[in-house]
């Protein structure tokens, strides 16, 4: 009946491409090009640079990157899961506040925390000066203090900023667990701690794995911290090979090896997400049993939650605010407004385009896309996992090719050289941003669309609307919230973005992020504090969004059925 070539089979495989399919395909391809370019260049013949790299620095890069990932992985897992459990299941003074306050470090970019921590804890920093005064020590020989600008320091800084990913997903997973399974474990003779270990943790494991994977993707993306701390990871290495050894082929090869790390993380994340589906125990909420803590236990719980927030957010925000207040007159009379305007312009432009692109991809997919479009959107939506330095290399390569081709064309046809049209322009930066952050807007809008039942489309279609009018009259009005969220998430990430901006920006073009990085690297944190504070303040916006979602999802408050999951998590990259 269903043999090859039977009418049914032919009909099934037939696919009529339409405007939406083509649009989604083109957009996905544009976003995917940088990744493809990096891999392609890495496999092209080089001038022996790879042989040189692999015998000299490569083993070091691999070791340091690996150690950094292990350290941050363990750190974020312990802090994220522990605080999520405390806040979700126990009642202690301030536990309601910690529910959202635990997210605050998300607002702080890793490099900003690295600068502040160094500023405070180094030999000349506040803490050591204070210690010397108290104990009467004269100099370094009199006492021991850990080196801040080291691998350990980088692990600590990144853990403090990235643990909220694990916290967020862990908390959502704990909340989603039906009370019943936990109560059943109690009636079967387990105490709360045994229940945690034997029921709650195994059920939450996929979500926590996703959280750790996201945190590690951000770890690989980080450039400012490892560069400033002189930790020779891959991301720092790409920059080094490209600028100091002047080899773009070598940089692409390094980037490809880094991509292998990313692919492993992505695979882990995907598998865990798939597992999550089977770990739903119930879709119904009732209030979770909470264990009131008293005395020493309550104090320990407060301390466990307060420390990460204090070190990850209160300290940097406080120090920066202090410096900014002291130096604002000089900062404002300088180029601050130019940098802020540059950041604002780049970020808003990217946010706007990313929402349009993300929407056309998501809607194209909803209209019933074929396997090609599905694959293309999947590739495009993994952009967030690719470190900025890799994408930057991937943007430079095709742009230089297009520029050279254009230049050759005009020289042959018109007899004039137009030079490089796209490389080193704002277009290049926006393209790079889009390649990385379109995944955010796409994910948010796709989630928003998914909440609109397909029968809405069907109803509108049978009532006489074509696909475009359905989008305009039904989806867009309902998607307004998701579109705003998507734009905001992309905007904030662009404001913080450092590695791509440094590599792709035009000569002498500064954003707030590059300005902060430049000044703080030269130990002039005070002068750039206002800029850093501005970035942190913008970063608080998505934290507020998440907090609202968390408050709504709290059991017994009636609100949204599915908790925090709704808000795309990749969105809130530090």
């Amino acid at each position: 009946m269903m043999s090859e070539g039977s009418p049914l089979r032919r009909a099934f495989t037939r696919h009529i491409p339409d405007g939406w399919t083509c649009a989604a395909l083109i957009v996905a391809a544009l976003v995917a090009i940088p990744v493809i370019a990096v891999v392609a260049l890495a496999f092209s013949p080089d001038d022996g640079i790879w042989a040189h790299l692999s015998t000299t620095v490569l083993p070091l890069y691999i070791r340091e990157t690996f150690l950094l990932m292990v350290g941050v992985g363990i750190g974020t897992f312990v802090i994220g899961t522990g605080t999520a459990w405390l806040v979700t299941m126990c009642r202690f003074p301030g536990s309601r506040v910690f529910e959202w306050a635990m997210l605050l470090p998300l607002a702080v970019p890793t490099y900003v925390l690295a600068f502040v921590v160094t500023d405070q804890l180094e030999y000349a920093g506040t803490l050591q000066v204070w210690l010397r005064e108290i104990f009467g020590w004269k100099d370094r020989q009199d006492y021991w203090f850990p080196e801040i600008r080291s691998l350990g320091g980088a692990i600590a800084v990144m853990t403090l900023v990235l643990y909220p990913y694990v916290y967020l997903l862990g908390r959502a997973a704990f909340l989603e667990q039906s009370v019943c399974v936990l109560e059943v474990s109690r009636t079967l003779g387990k105490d709360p701690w045994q229940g945690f270990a034997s029921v709650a943790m195994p059920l939450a494991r996929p979500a926590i794995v996703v959280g750790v994977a996201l945190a590690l993707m951000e770890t690989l993306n980080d450039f400012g911290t490892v560069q400033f701390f002189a930790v020779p990871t891959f991301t720092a290495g790409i920059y080094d090979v490209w600028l100091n050894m002047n080899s773009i082929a070598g940089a692409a090869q390094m980037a490809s090896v880094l991509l292998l790390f990313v692919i492993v993380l992505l695979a882990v994340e995907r598998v865990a997400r798939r597992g999550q589906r089977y770990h739903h125990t119930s879709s119904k909420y009732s209030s979770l049993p909470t264990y009131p803590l008293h005395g020493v236990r309550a104090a320990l719980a407060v301390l466990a939650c307060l420390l990460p927030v204090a070190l990850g957010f209160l300290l940097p925000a406080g120090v920066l605010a202090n410096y900014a207040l002291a130096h604002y007159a000089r900062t404002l009379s300088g180029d601050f407004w130019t940098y802020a305007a540059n950041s604002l312009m780049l970020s808003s432009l990217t946010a706007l385009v990313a929402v349009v692109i993300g929407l056309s991809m998501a809607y194209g997919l909803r209209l019933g896309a074929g396997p090609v479009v599905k694959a293309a959107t999947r590739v495009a939506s993994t952009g967030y996992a690719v470190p900025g330095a890799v994408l930057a290399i991937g943007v430079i390569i095709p742009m230089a090719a297009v520029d050279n081709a254009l230049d050759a064309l005009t020289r042959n046809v018109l007899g004039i050289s137009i030079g490089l049209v796209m490389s080193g322009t704002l277009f290049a930066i926006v393209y790079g941003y889009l390649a990385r952050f379109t995944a955010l807007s796409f994910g948010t809008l796709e989630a928003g669309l998914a909440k609109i039942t397909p029968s809405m489309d069907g109803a509108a279609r049978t009532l006489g609307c074509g696909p475009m009018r359905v989008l305009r009259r039904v989806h867009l009005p309902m998607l307004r919230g998701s579109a705003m969220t998507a734009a905001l998430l992309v905007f904030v990430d662009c404001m913080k973005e450092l590695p791509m901006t440094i590599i792709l920006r035009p000569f002498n073009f500064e954003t707030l992020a590059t300005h902060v990085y430049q000044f703080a690297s030269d130990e002039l944190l005070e002068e750039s504090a206002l800029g850093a504070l501005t970035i942190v303040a913008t970063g608080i916006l998505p934290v507020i969004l998440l907090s609202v979602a968390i408050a709504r999802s709290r059991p017994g408050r009636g609100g949204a059925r599915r908790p925090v999951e709704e808000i795309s998590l990749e969105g809130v990259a530090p």
Partner: protein
Amino acid sequence: MMIGGLHLNNVSHAYVAGDPVLNGVSVFVAPGELVCLLGPSGCGKTTLLRVAAGLEVLQVGQVRVGEQVVAEGRHGIHVPPERRGIGLMFQDYALFPHLTVMENITFGLNHAPGRRKWAAEALARMGLEAYAGVYPHILSGGEQQRVALLRALAPEPQVMLLDEPFSGLDVTRRASIRAETLGLLKETGVATLMVTHDPEEAMFMADRILVMNDGRVIQDGTPVDTYFQPATAFVAALFGPVNRLQGVVRSGHVATPLGVFDAPKLADGTAVEILIRPEGLRVAWPGEAPEVRAGDVPCKPAPVSGGAVTRAPIRAVSARPLGRSSHVVLRVPDGDGRALTIEARVPGVFLPKPGDEVQVTVNPRQAHVFPAK
């Protein structure tokens, strides 16, 4: 006014190649007619509606609205849903949450002031005029259902498709809303194809019932035919629990512990299954003159394998009052020293104690003989 109705010819559909959901289904609905697609979940009913509406691209077969071909698999014709003149009401109603009740109803009307008046009047007739300006989420399930129906009818479709239209309503409201919907559909004279898995609903609403299973139409007939002359054991069992007896055809008859049934069309020696509805059994106290009607089969000892049979009495196992009827479980000796357990539904209150002896007759219109699988 309207001609043609809905024609689905030999429609096949597969979401996954090699695993067809619909397998050569043909359906015709005349204008003003209401046809119910009845079948268990997963039998392809909803897919058939989606294919008819154009929400799925037809793979094999043909869909016509009146004389106009709106989809054909072989030639790749696919008129998009917005240009088919087919209304569809979804199981979840799919009211647009960002539009008011009136905006929802007039969503499909572009330049038709006359229909706007109709919408206002229809809303008033249903007692919903006060809700014209509110958003759908404050409406009750029944009110949402009526708004969704009006919205689908507003553009005057030639064909109306209803996907489980009453499944979201609570039992107490269902009957009245069903009657109201039926009235409205009959009044507009639209050709209606309705999907349901509730046989009682199909019996109530339908001019014709199409029973579907595994992507095929098994039976196409009036509600009475479908109930009293089920084409297969599957159709018979669709209308509720049945007692299943086994037997073998001997010269046009089947002997069972419950009596001898006619099986005129089956060859001698055919193994058969006899399905008897609980409401097809008449149960009475022994000695009481049973309410025997012409043609009833008295439950007399079965002539088992020629030998003389000592007839053991039928005894009650349990009895439960259900209100309008009583549910009685009986043990019927099969003559070989074993016993069958069967269920009966007796009108009124009839509550024998466990072990009480009763007498049973069978209404042969409620007993259906099929070849055993």
